[in-house]
Each structure stands twice: as C-alpha cells, then as structure tokens.
C-alpha cells in the first residue's frame, strides 16, 4: 500500500511529459520504474510496452501492469494490485485530461493568438526528438542481435513502404521470434 502515493506522484509527473506521444515519457519512465523504484526490470518494461502494441485503445495502457506489480509485490495481495493499476491510470491520464478540457474550451480564443502557431511549429521538432529519444532507449533493450535487428528493420521498411496494420507486423515479429528461438543452435 505504501507504493500508492509514490505511483501517483510518478505517473502524474510522467503524464505531462507525453508531448507528441506516450513514448516521449519512456526514458523518464524507465529511469523511475526500473532504476529508482525497481518495480520491474528494463526488459520486463520493454516487453510489456511491446505487447501493449497488440492491445486496442491508447497505446500506453501497459502502465496498469506497473501499478499492479508494484502494489502486488509490496502487499502480497492481488486485489490491491488491481487498485495500484487503477491509481496509475488515474494519475497518468488525469493531468493531461484536465489540460485538454481547459485548452479545448479556450481554443477559439487561442486561434487568434499569433504565438499559438509558433508554439505548434516549435514543439513539433521537440516532440519528434523526444519520441526518437524514447524509441532509441527502448530499442537498446529490444534490439540485441541479428534476429531482433532484422525483425526491427523489416518492420521499419514495411511500415514506410506499405500501408499495413501495425498489429499484424507485431504478430509477425512474435512468430519469427518463436521460430528462431526454437531452431536448433
């Protein structure tokens, strides 16, 4: 139970870093959940994030499992673990939801403000940079050799050249991973 206030604080903080996408918060999420609070290992975090790509809905829903594990581990209770997951969701989506509500209502006034365009144009490269930084720190854990490098490259090139449902490519990755894993060495 003592993990709940920490989870609230950590995920409310991560919430406001998700500029451009959830992945922008990944380096900080990795630092806080793996190094600082040791809720999971970095490969567990990357695994959960990646499986999350197969789930429908907002693509960061894997955070429920961080909250679940943190409280489950410290309290030994599965039910309290679920509460931990709920806390994380509320903390992660609450602050940005409130901001979206306020900005959405003020948008017509903001439309005429000349700096609004500047903010949008200026934040674009920074959010692309934050997403790229998140991607690279995630890839450091995910791409470890020829097989994983090949899968990543195949998915990258397919995505850039063909319009295809990304979930199918993730499934392909799973199948290739299984085949290569069970091949006799």
């Amino acid at each position, binding site marked *: 139970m003592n993990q709940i206030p920490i989870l609230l604080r950590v995920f409310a903080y991560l919430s406001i870093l998700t500029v451009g996408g959830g992945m922008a918060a990944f380096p900080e999420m990795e630092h806080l959940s793996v190094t600082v609070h040791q809720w999971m290992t970095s490969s567990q975090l990357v695994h959960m994030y990646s499986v999350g790509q197969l789930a429908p809905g907002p693509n960061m829903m894997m955070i429920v499992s961080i909250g679940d594990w943190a409280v489950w581990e410290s309290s030994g209770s599965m039910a309290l673990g679920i509460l931990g*997951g709920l806390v994380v969701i509320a903390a992660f989506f609450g602050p940005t939801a409130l901001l979206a509500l306020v900005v959405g209502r003020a948008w017509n006034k903001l439309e005429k403000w000349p*700096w609004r365009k500047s903010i949008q144009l200026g934040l674009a490269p920074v959010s692309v*940079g934050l997403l790229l930084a998140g991607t690279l720190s995630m890839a450091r854990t995910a791409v470890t050799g020829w097989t994983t490098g090949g899968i990543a490259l195949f998915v990258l090139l397919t995505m850039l050249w063909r319009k295809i449902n990304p979930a199918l490519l993730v499934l392909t990755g799973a199948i290739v991973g299984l085949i290569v894993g069970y091949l006799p060495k």
Partner: protein
Amino acid sequence: MSETAISHADERALVAAARAKATVFDIFWQFLVIGATSFGGVVPYLREGLVTKNHWVDDKEFVELLSISQSLPGLNATNMAILLGDRLKGWMGAVAGIVGVCLPGGLLMLCVGMFYRVHGDHSFITFMLKGVAAAAAGLLLATVIQLGKKSLSHRFDLFFVLITVLAVNRLHLGVPKTLVIVGLMAIFFHYPRKSEKESVKQ
C-alpha cells in the same frame, strides 16, 4: 464544386441533429467500442466512429480536434475523447469518453501483465516477446519518421530534433529540462512573422 457545397450544408445539418441526440451513455459506448477494436493505431477508428458512423463532427472539425490533441501532452486517443466528449456533453461527456476508450485496453493489459508476472520466464513467452519487442522498436521508428515528415516545417527543425535526442540520451538532462530549454529555443525560432500571419489568414 456545387455538389460538395450541398453535401457540406447537408453534413452540417446532420452533425447538428446527431449532436442534439447524443447522450452521455452514447459517448461512453462509442468510445468503448473504439477502445476495444482499434488494433494498430486509434486515429482511423476515431474517424470511423465519430465522423462516418455517428456524425458528431465533420471532417474539418475532426482534423481540428486532432491537431489540438497532438499539440497537447497526452495521448491522441484520450485527448480526443476529452475534447469531443466535452463539446457534446460538457465534462460528463469528457469523462464518459476517456473512461470508455481506456477500459478495454486497460483490462486486457491488466490480465496480460498478471499472466506475464507469473509465466514470463517460460521460454515460449521469452522467445515470442523478443520478437514482439523488436517489431515494436521498428514500428516506433517508422512512426517517428512519418511524424517528422508530416510535422517538421523547416530544415533547421532537424537540428532541434538532434539536440533533443542528445540532451535526453547522451547528456541525461531529463525530459522536462530538455522540453523547456529546446522547446523555448524552437518556439522563438518560429516566432510569429508577418508573412506567416498573412498566409494563415488566406
């Protein structure tokens, strides 16, 4: 051209009628369906559900809401749920939208997480997840490239992308400091110019 003008007027009437009928539960239900079916990226499913099926917004407003969602922190799916829910039914609509869109994926990931915590070290799971993680890395990189192509407006923006990556991954400056420092630099680089203002008006 006249045909599109007529269909545009029709569409506005359709949207007005559909909005007047929408209830908080309708919003919850539609976002629940989107949250349960949007495999591989939420935006096309949002458009299908909100524009094509329910006529709660027309394409122009949809794009506008999406651009607000993208320039704010938070995920597209949840920001869209808030913005649209609020325009339809105020804060209760917003809450209905965000709860609906998060619920299916959240429940699923809770179960997956529990299963993985217990069986995650089984070799079958490990092999599979190695492939899944590698695919997700390639997917993310493709998303970054596509987003960059679409949203970068100036050659010099690539420089801001580069220093953002270096600040976070090499200098370990942390995301918030990087966001403020590089963000301010880039915003001032794109300060409001007269010519841009005029081109926006046109």
